[in-house]
């Protein structure tokens, strides 16, 4: 049977070119970059090279503004906790949004337990942050604003440049979780007035277990992991050399191919959205129609539930994910879908199709072809479907 993955948001294969670049660093080149001898200097050179590639991808002015971590979650923890703890004497107020990744939301909640005040700004029906509300919430105790570059679930891209300029004017640090955006759309940390920016390797076809945090020179931050003082003292622990080489190569490829790949993806994305909305009654796009990640399609179907859709598609060889409670550990539907104003049953009936480098037009047409019958069958089974819809 044909197997099609449209769940790249959940996991991405390592690009073979990345793997090839990494291989020598498992067996041949193994020195500790802190060592002054040749073995050490070889790996130090490799790390410096990877750092420069990541810096280029995200528009860092200086290569030294990038440090390596174990992934997006650690980068978000370090950025938020590190800035909050370092600047406590200046203030105790952090602002973020209601649609952040859990690694931002739960880090902010942990700060609340330590006595910090956290404001979760609402978003509109497309998932765009309310800028006026942001301006009005910043006060003299505010030290940090954390907003994601783009939301991986509904695909919405936030007005980062505007937020950056607001934070710059009000002299508040600005952290951006760019895990879902990096490598897919252009990012310019320097020009967009971003002070801290988190990225993850796997989301851009690098190996799992590696990430990076951009920290603008002069930003007040303390570490959350202590030890031998690697990565300018901000991330102790012997460097994950193969992983760092991998994220560097992944960043290089992503930058080189971004223009052509994003054009291709936007075409596929719009094709799938148009097919679904045209062929399936009572189907609606979640997220913004144009301010949207090229690889993201999130659609809701009235009267049916997401997990039954996932299982039906899985039987046809197609992998997708959903905002349904049944696929989460908490049994609560996605906080992102609730934040854009969907009712619980609408959130339960939402599906996320996320594309990757392997996704083809044939894949999109295959999925567009099988989906209407699946939806029809599940609707016939659902007590919520009005009789006149069944026909």
């Amino acid at each position, binding site marked *: 049977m044909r197997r099609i993955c449209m769940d790249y948001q959940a996991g991405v294969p390592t690009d073979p070119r990345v793997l090839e670049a990494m291989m020598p660093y498992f067996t041949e080149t193994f020195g500790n970059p802190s060592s002054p001898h040749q073995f050490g200097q070889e790996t130090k050179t490799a790390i410096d090279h990877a750092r420069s590639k990541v810096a280029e991808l995200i528009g860092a002015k200086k290569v030294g503004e990038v440090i390596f971590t174990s992934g997006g979650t650690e980068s978000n923890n370090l950025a938020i906790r590190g800035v909050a703890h370092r600047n406590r004497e200046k203030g105790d107020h952090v602002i973020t949004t209601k649609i952040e990744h859990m690694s931002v939301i739960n880090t902010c909640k942990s700060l609340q337990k330590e006595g910090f005040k956290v404001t979760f700004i609402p978003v509109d029906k497309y998932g765009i942050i309310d800028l006026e509300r942001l301006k009005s919430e910043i006060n003299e105790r505010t030290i940090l604003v954390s907003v994601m570059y783009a939301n991986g679930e509904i695909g919405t891209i936030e007005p980062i440049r505007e937020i950056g300029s607001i934070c710059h004017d009000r002299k508040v640090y600005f952290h951006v979780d760019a895990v879902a955006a990096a490598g897919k759309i252009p990012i310019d940390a320097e020009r967009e007035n971003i002070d801290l920016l988190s990225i993850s390797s796997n989301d851009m076809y690098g190996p799992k277990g590696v990430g990076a945090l951009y920290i603008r020179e002069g930003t007040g931050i303390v570490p959350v992991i202590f030890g031998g003082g690697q990565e300018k003292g901000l991330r102790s622990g012997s460097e994950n050399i193969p992983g760092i080489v991998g994220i560097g190569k992944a960043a290089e490829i992503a930058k080189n191919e971004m223009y052509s790949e994003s054009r291709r993806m936007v075409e596929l994305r719009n094709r799938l959205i148009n097919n679904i909305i045209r062929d399936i009654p009572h189907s609606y796009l979640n997220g913004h129609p144009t301010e949207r990640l090229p690889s993201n399609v999130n659609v809701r179907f009235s009267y049916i539930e997401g997990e039954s859709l996932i*299982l039906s598609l899985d039987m046809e060889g197609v992998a997708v994910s959903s905002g*349904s*409670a049944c696929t989460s550990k908490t*049994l609560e539907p996605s906080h992102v879908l609730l934040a854009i104003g969907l009712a619980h049953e609408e959130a339960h009936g939402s599906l996320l199709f996320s594309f990757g480098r392997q996704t083809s037009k044939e894949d999109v047409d295959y999925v567009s072809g099988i989906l209407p019958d699946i939806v029809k069958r599940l609707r016939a*089974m*659902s007590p919520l479907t009005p009789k006149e819809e069944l026909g």
Partner: protein
Amino acid sequence: MGEIPDADGVGTVGNPICGDMMQIFIKVKDNRLEDVKFKTFGCGAAIATSSMITELAKGKTIEEALKITRADVADALEGLPPIKMHCSNLAADGLRVAIEDYLKKKEASK
């Protein structure tokens, strides 16, 4: 699967806000469940338990059918993941509500 248009009893349990809702329809003849059908909004486990209860209940007397428990449904499916035991395993409740509906209607028509 589906609806029984002239059902003798209907049981609706769960609610779409939680992500699982089902309706069980029964047709009764000579104190036996002649036919049992379902409609379900919910995840795979919810659909599986609804389908299984129709298998388990069909042909049984009212008294026998009332004895079917959530555990019986889960066992017949050879187990359910723990997280699904509570939220999606509503079918036995749905059948009981449908039978109560039937008994109430029968009482009223006397």
